């Protein structure tokens, strides 16, 4: 019997085994293709982007409006109380501010003397809104509403609220996927700000449930690193720009090998309530092969 069964008055029906076989081959080919080259990646991601992203943007803005109204109602009472407290605070802070201004002038002068770049402030940034989250429950990734057309590229760093959020891991013409540093497949090379000791910050599902990120391989021979120390991205990271705040050390302990230390740190970014992020459009300088 021929493998293609044709019944009277019916259209061609392909036996399901054949269809399964063909589609399996297609999938495998796609996997090999995207693994080896990005010839297919780009057009595919851009087509899908044009189809889906406009809707997601719309939903995002509607959802934002609703949650905004809800928050407004809930917050009015607490706002009144907060207002009086804040007024007192303003008075106190104004005084403090004048003092700090003086310090800043001094700092600026000193910086000029040392010809230091004000690195963090001089990065070029683009604001973007989060429009969708990873629908699987394994990784912490999300999609933002800016893409290639806004000058975004893969591996650009993403920050929010002064702390490191992650990096762009895929990009379409009008969207980009950001893999967060808390994601299970993310590792960041970091260092302690005070002592410049290097360490590896590894995201994990488990840690995020406890509100922390794990770090390891901290070589701290002098024992100068303590809980509460700032962790920033290191100079030697090949994907992340140096000096971006990752978080603060929460716990620290010696490893079994007595050479390195590991522990947990509290991220500077509130990953639970993230809606807008900044993408740094400067990229780490890489050595072309």
């Amino acid at each position, binding site marked *: 019997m021929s493998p293609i069964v044709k019944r009277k008055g019916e259209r061609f029906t392909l036996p399901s085994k054949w269809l399964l076989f063909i589609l399996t081959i297609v999938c495998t080919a796609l996997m090999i293709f995207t693994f080896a080259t990005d010839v297919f990646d780009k057009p595919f991601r851009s087509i*899908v982007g044009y189809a889906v992203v406009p*809707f997601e943007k719309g939903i*995002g803005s509607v959802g934002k409006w609703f949650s905004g109204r809800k928050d407004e109602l809930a917050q009015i009472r607490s706002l009144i109380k907060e207002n009086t407290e804040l007024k007192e605070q303003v008075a106190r802070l104004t005084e403090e501010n004048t003092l700090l201004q003086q310090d800043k002038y001094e700092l600026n002068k000193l910086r000029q003397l040392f010809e230091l770049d004000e690195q963090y402030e001089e990065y070029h940034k683009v604001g973007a809104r989060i429009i969708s989250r990873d629908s699987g429950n394994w990784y912490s990734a999300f999609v933002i509403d800016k893409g290639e057309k806004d000058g975004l590229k893969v591996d650009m760093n993403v920050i929010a609220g002064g702390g490191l959020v992650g990096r762009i891991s895929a990009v379409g013409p009008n969207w980009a996927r950001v893999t967060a540093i808390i994601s299970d497949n993310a590792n960041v090379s970091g260092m302690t700000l005070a002592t410049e000791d290097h360490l590896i910050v590894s995201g994990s599902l488990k840690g995020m449930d406890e509100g922390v990120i794990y770090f390891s391989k901290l070589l701290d021979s002098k024992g100068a690193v303590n809980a509460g120390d700032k962790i920033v991205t290191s100079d030697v990271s090949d994907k992340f720009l140096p000096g971006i705040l990752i978080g603060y050390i929460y716990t620290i302990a010696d490893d079994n090998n007595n050479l390195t230390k590991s522990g947990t740190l509290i991220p500077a970014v509130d990953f639970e309530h993230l809606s807008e992020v900044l993408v740094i459009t400067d990229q780490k300088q890489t050595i072309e092969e």
Partner: protein
Amino acid sequence: MLGFFLNALVLFFSFLLQTAIFPAVLPIHVYPNLLIIFTAALGFMKGENVGMVVGFFCGLLYDAFFGGVIGFHALLFLYVGFLNGKFYRVFYPEDLKLPLALITVSDLTYSLTCYVFLFLIWGKFDFPYYFLHVILPEMLVTLIATIIFYPLFLKMNEWLLHGKRKREH
């Protein structure tokens, strides 16, 4: 033809619901896997071929945005659709137990495969943790979502069949 467009529309809407709407409105961290529900449901309602094609496109859509390698989820969903299609012959619209069981098992299998290929091979051996914190919750919310969404899929399918019969007469 109408059925094809309607299914494409439902697939699209399910994806939006799962990735954009649920995270915005639901105060939980684990979201139901609507794409699995849709793929499995069409599999046992319409047979292997439809299940496979739907699964393939579901997976492809997921891969485009969140998959590391394009084709991995497409392959997984493809087999979910195919295996559920095997139950086409024993499926009756009146029976809710079989669909619930099939979708739950599908989701469990999907999650386990994801764990093996995305976590276990990277040396993350803490299976009990991942099982209790990801796989099990996802299975439960998917079960709840099935109770809500499956009757809708069923109604749509019946309506389509009804319309088809009408046109043929």
